[in-house]
């Protein structure tokens, strides 16, 4: 046993580890500064939701939330402040984590969760995209740890490194610094209308599904947690489904049926705009078959505000 060689190796490894930690700390800290200095883009909106918003109404959900709920309209109709915290491509685990971080700081009057019919189906990307929460881990370990541990083990070890916390965010930061991504209280309108003749007949086959039709118990738990969190803080919670261009049959959609069932049992109102006659087959209201354009979003927001007014949320 060559003790000398072991000693040399040991000291060198320690030296190397110290240098790695120093580089990580210095460059990682700079990267964090850049990250939090973003004023537009998806990270800026998430940061605003977590750290700044005091809105009375908060909207959660995926691209359908982000593109369909116009805060300006809701504020005018409901006489409350509103912020759209919808995040494109994100699913229930993300929304629940976001809700928990928000509730730690502020308590809005109303939370609206836009429901996608496939929310409870297994989806790997739902886990993969949780990396968007990494930058907030240091400040929100308690809320984020249980959710990030569903994605991978040893979360504490990985996120110990500052550079890993902001992994792959620098291009976003520079991109939106050079070309700001304008939003209106979190809402980003879509323009243009669809041309029905150009929609492929077999569009279901042409769309790459990001899920498999098997219920994921983690997503079911996330939905229940979302409801419980709101209830504990006495926040009025409303589930809403957005209109689509085509009529769809949800009678055998296990995910959506389970969401409806949970909502009913937990007494969460579900405003269902699927197959709503005011919207379906109206190309002038849609940007694509599943996203409303600005005109459609404004009409939808008005309809939603009317429905909420009827719920009489003034009584807490």
């Amino acid at each position, binding site marked *: *046993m*060559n003790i000398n*060689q*072991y000693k*040399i*190796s040991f000291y*060198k490894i320690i*030296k*190397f580890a110290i*240098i*790695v930690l*120093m*580089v*990580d700390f210095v*460059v*990682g800290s700079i*990267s964090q500064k850049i990250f939090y200095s973003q004023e537009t883009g998806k990270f800026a909106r998430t940061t605003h939701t977590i750290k700044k918003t005091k809105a009375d109404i908060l909207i959660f959900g995926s691209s359908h939330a982000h593109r369909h709920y116009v805060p300006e309209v809701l504020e005018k109709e409901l006489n409350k402040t509103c912020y759209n915290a919808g995040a*494109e*491509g994100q699913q229930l685990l993300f929304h629940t984590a976001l809700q928990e971080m928000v509730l730690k700081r502020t308590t809005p009057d109303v939370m609206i969760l836009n429901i996608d019919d496939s929310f409870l189906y297994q989806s790997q990307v739902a886990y*993969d995209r949780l*990396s968007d929460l990494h930058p907030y881990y240091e400040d929100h370990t308690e809320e984020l740890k249980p959710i990030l541990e569903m994605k*991978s*083990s*040893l979360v504490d*070890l*990985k996120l110990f*490194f500052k*550079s*890993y916390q*902001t*992994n*792959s965010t*620098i*291009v*976003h930061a520079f*991109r939106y610094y050079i070309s700001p991504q304008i939003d209106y209280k979190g809402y980003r309108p879509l323009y243009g209308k669809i041309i029905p003749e150009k929609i492929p007949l077999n569009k279901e086959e042409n769309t*790459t599904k990001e899920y498999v039709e098997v219920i994921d118990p983690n997503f079911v738990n996330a939905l229940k947690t979302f409801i419980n969190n709101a209830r504990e803080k006495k926040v009025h919670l409303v589930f809403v489904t957005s209109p689509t261009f085509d009529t769809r049959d949800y009678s055998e959609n296990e995910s959506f049926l389970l969401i409806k069932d949970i909502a009913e049992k937990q007494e969460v109102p579900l405003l269902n705009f699927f197959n709503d006659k005011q919207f379906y087959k109206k190309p002038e209201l849609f940007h694509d078959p599943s996203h409303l354009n600005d005109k459609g979003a404004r009409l939808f927001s008005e309809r939603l505000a009317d429905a909420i007014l009827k719920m009489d949320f003034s009584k807490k």
Partner: protein
Amino acid sequence: MLFNSFDFLAFLPIVLVLYWFVVYKHIKWQNVLLLIASYVFYGWWDWRFLSLIGLSTIMDYFVGFRIYESQQKSIKKRWLWVSMLFNLGLLGFFKYYNFFIDSWIDMLSNIGYQSENTWTLQVILPVGISFYTFQTMSYSIDIYREKLRPTKDFIAFAAFVSFFPQLVAGPIERATNLLPQFLNKRNFTYQTFSYGIKLMIWGFFLKLVVADRAAIYVNAVFNNFESHEGLSYIAATILFAFQIYGDFAGYSLIAIGTAKLFGFGLMTNFKRPYFSASVSEFWTRWHISLSTWFRDYLYIPLGGNRVAKPRWLFNLFITFLISGLWHGANWTFVIWGGLNGIYLIAEVLIGSKNRKGILNVFITFVLINFSWIFFRANNVEQAAYMVKTIFTVPGRLYIGSGDDIAASMYAVLAIIILFVVEAKKEYFNTLFSISGNRLEVIRLGGYAAILFMILYFGVFGKSQFIYFQF
């Protein structure tokens, strides 16, 4: 277990500490430890297939003796055939059975005979089977050729067959190089240890930053090729060239580096292949352990280049065709191998084997990239469609949407870094060096910077190494 997993990050130090601090006094115990560690490493993926490695080990251990002890050449040959048939039988059943049945049924249907396919089986391809079967076959062949004496030390032999750093994706080691290392004392030296760590860090950079970043764009185009056009196919193919290089060369470097930590030397598997000025040269720099295996155990026994020219060209072609099939049970791989065979034949015929210069490097890169289209495409129809579209509908370049744009930018940045490092090694090797710098702060700082880039730009999903499937 994957190298790019946190399981491995915990596994490796435990095995190293036991190896150098607990069982360091006896080679035998070190080999026992390596054998157990290797079986744990492999069993982490699927313990059921350990039985195949075990069977292959026992078979070749005994057959090795039979070959060595037999007095008559014909009996030696018979035992060699036993080893070959067993190993190729394993490979044939697990990897090629369904492929040949499907192809047979397709062929019958093409000539008008419709048959219901009831012959294919639900068979899982055991990880690394192509690698360890080739490694054990080389043992039997080398004993037959009297280049090697069989070892009586069963543990050392079993550890040689299943040595975890290179078990699942090579380098495919020769018994003549690796087996003696299991029989002799390994010494711990700082030089070897630190060199191993440096190789591993660069290997992880190649895998997590170059390959996995490039994969995002490549998959977006190849898995949804109907939505893209010629220019995007070209971009995706070039990125795939770096993806597969980063993936496989990265794995090899991690394997070689890991082996060094235990005091073992494995063969170099890649030598900056994209700087080759001819396809012949490319194959002396790409997956060297496999190409030399095919050279020594197939091409030369077929007669190599010491035969009449037509036969020589046939030998070249058939070697590459089989090499293609080795990579996967799909006609795309066969065509890929065939294309490379054709390139080599053309180089022989026009006498351009020993080309030099940047222009030839570029031409070779284009030719190799063309063959990658077939390697990466999901089927022959897709490859044919993409090739046709490249020449007929250049269209517009897809730069990604949403996060894909950022992924492409990181991939390009990583490839630029890779290019600079490799170009420096290729053309200006005596200039500035990080790993060999006399200033410690530059050596350590340089590798700390690479680690930082891995943490900051790397993809930390659960991505497999591409060559695991082979």
